[in-house]
């Protein structure tokens, strides 16, 4: 028995190492995290609505009295805008990294407005973009700086009761998540120089629409 004591001490030490490696490794090895689960039913940079109180929900313990819409965003090619009407003060938008780290949250009562537009900009591209990018929304647009290129934005819309579910879903269906593709500055300059476009400059939205732009003001 005495000969086993060193082995016992070594096994306790090794168990500690295995414990630490396991705990730190799980986030990188897990195949059923939120990003993976939502990837199975969605494309990137598009908004998806989940059915209320469904029997087979993609995420565990989803609230049965909340309507969820989510957007898996990828900012590597362009910024992404998220627009929604807010039903009431209890609605909220949360923006998280793909490992669940929540870096932005706003509720309807804090927004103090009926409609909300978030522009998701990666920190890595911030220096190039903030000084040049403009938007038509001005004060109405909130710039959200994301630490990584990918993540998940979730709109949570509490449902007052079953009879209000359709109204909530209808309002949520008008929400949008789409890439914002800015035109080449040279093209903008050329277009601004044309007599017929001597007005506001433009950017292209996700649907290819040309939009007049004004300087934005609010960065978070």
């Amino acid at each position: 028995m005495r000969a086993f004591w060193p082995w016992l001490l070594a096994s306790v030490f090794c168990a500690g190492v295995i414990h630490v490696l396991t705990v730190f490794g799980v986030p990188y090895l897990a195949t059923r995290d939120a990003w993976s689960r939502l990837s199975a039913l969605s494309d990137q940079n598009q908004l998806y609505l989940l059915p209320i109180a469904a029997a087979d929900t993609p995420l565990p313990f989803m609230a049965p009295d909340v309507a969820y819409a989510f957007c898996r965003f990828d900012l590597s090619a362009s910024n992404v805008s998220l627009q929604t009407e807010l039903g009431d003060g209890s609605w909220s938008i949360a923006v998280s990294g793909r490992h669940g780290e929540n870096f932005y949250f706003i509720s309807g009562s804090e927004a103090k407005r009926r409609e909300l537009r978030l522009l998701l900009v990666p920190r890595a591209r911030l220096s190039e973009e903030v000084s040049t990018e403009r938007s038509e929304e001005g004060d109405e647009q909130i710039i959200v700086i994301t630490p990584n290129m990918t993540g998940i934005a979730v709109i949570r819309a509490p449902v007052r009761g079953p009879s209000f579910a359709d109204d909530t879903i209808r309002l949520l269906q008008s929400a949008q998540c789409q890439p914002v593709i800015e035109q080449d500055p040279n093209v903008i300059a050329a277009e601004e120089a044309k007599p017929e476009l001597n007005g506001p400059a433009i950017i292209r939205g996700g649907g290819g629409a040309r939009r007049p732009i004004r300087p934005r003001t609010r960065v978070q």
Partner: protein
Amino acid sequence: MKNLVHFLCFALLSLALGLGSAYYFIEHGFALVAPNNGPWKTWINAGSLTADPYTRARIARFGDLPITSGSGLTFVAKTDSDGSDLSSDCEYEIVARPLSAIWWSIALYDSDGELIPNKAGRHAFNSQNLTVLPDGTQRIILAREARPGHWLPSGEDHDLTLVLRMIRPLSLEQQRQGLAFQSLPSIQKGNC
């Protein structure tokens, strides 16, 4: 031969202790990362950019998409206020005082996190549809059969899990004072 036996014992013990303890703490947490308030437990650092490794591991393992505790809190109860497991064999009364939050909700699941099918389609009550009684409380009854008032059907033959969600649970004053918890609803067992 003796050394080989010792080595095998060492390897097995290391793996069992290391993996077992990691599983336990990721599953159940401990007071620092998952404190209790009566029967309610919350992973207080969930969603935070500086979350501890146990919380990060749990989020990844279970596929949660949490928001930070300053923005929202999620409490889970698997026992009543006396510490007995919640079961569909018994009736329970949840007694709450209006909570300080923009919105809050109490939802009922089975032990696997699945909603309990019922004809009434009732799975939760929230601050928008719970009435306040003359004594200032809000009450929810968990029972198999219909009950007057705010009744949540508990189905048959399974353990129950209650989830309390709060959006913006703390006022700025409470945040400054570091008050993480309010007085949460009690869960009283009735007839079994």
